[in-house]
């Protein structure tokens, strides 16, 4: 996948305000930040997959492996108070928002130290402190909710933007377009991030979507869209900066189509027979978001292999600590059954 960030041609007539972001170079510090963040998500998810296999994590578990550059690049463009909301493939978003690895992992194992006290699970975690509004298991619901977060920002005139993440599958839900309409009508500060990982569960984009250029999905609502190489954290970040500035300035919503890829199945029980192994292997070997950063760090002589190994070790330690905690923390007290239903 070539690095590309182009303005969707179909909407250029209505919204000439948005220019395609220029490819940007990261500083050493940005590269290192991105590397560490993406590696944390990767290692965390691998560990989650392993704990699932061992029976510590139950139910559904949707891993973010392969898509790490999207949340990482987006989050680097946010300011304090900006909100994030997403669907069920949410562990990466939570880590990127700064929620603790222990809290997320312990929620996955259904323990009392989990972010939702063990009552939410993989798909339902929240953090008021980190402005993370879930974690939603109903495909597309987070788009209306995220529009509501933006509504609240405008109501309070607080200068914040909300980020509503959803997939190429959710992009076909009706409430997405109801939300687009209201967000554009009311000029709400929301960035719609369509994580196009090419498959809605097992259905390839071309089999489910009449228009597969998701950056055009806002055309009927005068919402500009940008197609972004979601495997390149720099391209994501450039688009994020552009989109945040656009939404914050009162111009209304904007769509970012992140062209990305998930390496694992839809959930843990998905054998992923709907795509070839070669396709997956090609993405992993040629477009891996973490390898790209690693190669630049080394190529620019910004880091040695040893420097990166140290980061690897730090990240592994965080994940190992989270996994230990998540296995040893007690289950919720039975009295929690009836708490948090009503205030």
């Amino acid at each position: 996948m070539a690095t590309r960030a182009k303005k969707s041609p179909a909407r250029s007539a209505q919204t000439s305000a948005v220019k395609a972001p220029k490819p940007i170079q990261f500083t050493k510090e940005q590269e290192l930040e991105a590397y560490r963040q993406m590696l944390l998500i990767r290692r965390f998810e691998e560990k989650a997959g392993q704990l699932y296999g061992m029976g510590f994590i139950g139910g559904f578990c949707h891993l973010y492996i392969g898509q790490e550059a999207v949340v990482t690049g987006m989050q680097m463009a946010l300011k304090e108070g900006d909100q994030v909301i997403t669907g069920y493939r949410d562990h990466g978003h939570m880590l990127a928002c700064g929620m603790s690895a222990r809290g997320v992992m312990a929620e996955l194992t259904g323990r009392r130290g989990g972010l939702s006290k063990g009552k939410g699970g993989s798909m339902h975690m929240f953090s008021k402190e980190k402005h993370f509004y879930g974690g939603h298991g109903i495909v597309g619901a987070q788009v209306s909710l995220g529009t509501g977060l933006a509504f609240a920002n405008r109501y309070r005139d607080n200068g914040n933007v909300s980020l509503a993440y959803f997939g190429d599958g959710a992009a076909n839900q009706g409430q997405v377009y109801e939300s687009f309409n209201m967000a554009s009508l009311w000029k709400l500060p929301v960035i719609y991030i369509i994580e196009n990982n090419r498959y809605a569960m097992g259905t390839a984009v071309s089999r489910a979507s009449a228009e597969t250029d998701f950056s055009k999905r806002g055309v009927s609502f005068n919402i500009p869209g940008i197609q972004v190489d979601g495997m390149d954290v720099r391209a994501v970040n450039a688009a994020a900066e552009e989109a945040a500035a656009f939404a914050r300035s009162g111009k209304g919503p904007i769509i970012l189509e992140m062209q990305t890829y998930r390496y694992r199945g839809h959930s843990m029980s998905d054998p992923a027979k709907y795509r070839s192994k070669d396709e997956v292997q090609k993405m992993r070997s040629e477009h891996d978001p973490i390898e790209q950063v690693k190669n630049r760090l080394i190529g620019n002589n910004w880091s040695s292999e040893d420097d990166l190994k140290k980061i690897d070790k730090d990240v592994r330690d965080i994940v190992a600590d989270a996994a230990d905690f998540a296995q040893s923390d007690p289950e919720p007290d039975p009295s929690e059954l009836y708490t948090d239903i009503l205030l």
Partner: protein
Amino acid sequence: MPVDILMPALSPTMEEGKLSKWLKKEGDKVTSGDVLAEIETDKATMEVEAVDEGTIGKIVVPEGTDNVKVNSVIAVLLGDGESADAASAPKAAPEAPPQAAEAPKAEAAAEQAPASVPAAPKSEVAADPDIPAGTEMVSTTVREALRDAMAEEMRRDPNVFIMGEEVAEYQGAYKITQGLLDEFGPRRVVDTPITEHGFAGVGVGAAMTGLRPIVEFMTFNFAMQAIDQIINSAAKTLYMSGGQMGAPMVFRGPSGAAARVAAQHSQCYAAWYSHIPGLKVVMPYTAADAKGLLKAAIRDPNPVIFLENEILYGHSFDVPKLDDFVLPIGKARIHKKGNDVTLVSFGIGMNYTVKAAEELAKLGIDAEIIDLRTIRPMDMPTVIESVKKTGRCVTIEEGYPQSSVGTEIATRVMQQAFDYLDAPVLTVAGKDVPMPYAANLEKLALPSVKEIIDAVKAVTYTA
């Protein structure tokens, strides 16, 4: 230290599987993400990926082995400089990891679960506030009472706003929001497009940040488009977030049959929403209750379903002229005291019930009328106390008869006051049909005063 590679569970229900193929052999180097083996579950063939880096030291379970238990050791991974010999001997026998040992325990715990389910908490609801003697009573329509309630709360709390179809410039499809745009402006009185699913979600999202939306549905029939956001997002978020955030908001609008609007516009949602933990459901009859309970609903930190009725909008009742008249959610009101039979109703059902009681009085039957006002949480103590006195109970509502509010009351009365009953609890409800359009059929589909009188005669054995 050598790392055990375990037989993974690859679905929520998998307990064992076939190790069909090894894609790596002893001595192969692997890194995170490499496919090690293929496993057949009852549903599919899955790939097992490496999590750790190292060299395959020993394959413990050969390919083609059936019924390999989840969590048994299938191979051993060696780090730099570790030897396969050191790893193989003690590790050869599949060793149950801690979780495997815990699993049976968890099952045993599940079997005992009924004994350890904690009791559902009971909460006391305060009685209605006293209305000071000499308070002026003002004849007010339900429509005006609802408007007054919203206006007062919007003056009190800048976080309260109303959104819905035609609530602003049109002044409300049923004129409930008349005058609100003039007083509060378009920021707080928000006309929405006709997109119930979307604007309900927008309302819930705003509420999750601490705003206090009032989401008006032109009718609750249209809220079926939004019911996912109401139930899955508004009602459940507090629980799913471990108490971190919820949806302090009101969903309101008319519910139930109006007149001659046929099947899709004539449906009572009291029983539907009363099924859901995390919601409160209010359905007032009088203007005073409409005002006092809507003010309470707006202040409530939980999502409240506020069910109104189009026919009642124009009915007038006395409302006390007080600066801040707020009623408790979850408390029934004894509309009329009596000794012979307990009539339990709510909302528009009270219309039939009050008339029936007047007719019954002429027959010498002294009915006690309980207006539930709140469907969830349901004020059963008030109902039970009354049934203990009368020994008889009839419920009245317009909704469908199966799984209705009445059947819920009948169940609870049977469970909590069985020894006091002198007759079965009877339920008067709408008929089990979609609402017909023809005037005569519509009338037949709705409950009637006569059906209530007949039911009371039956339970008092005066038929």
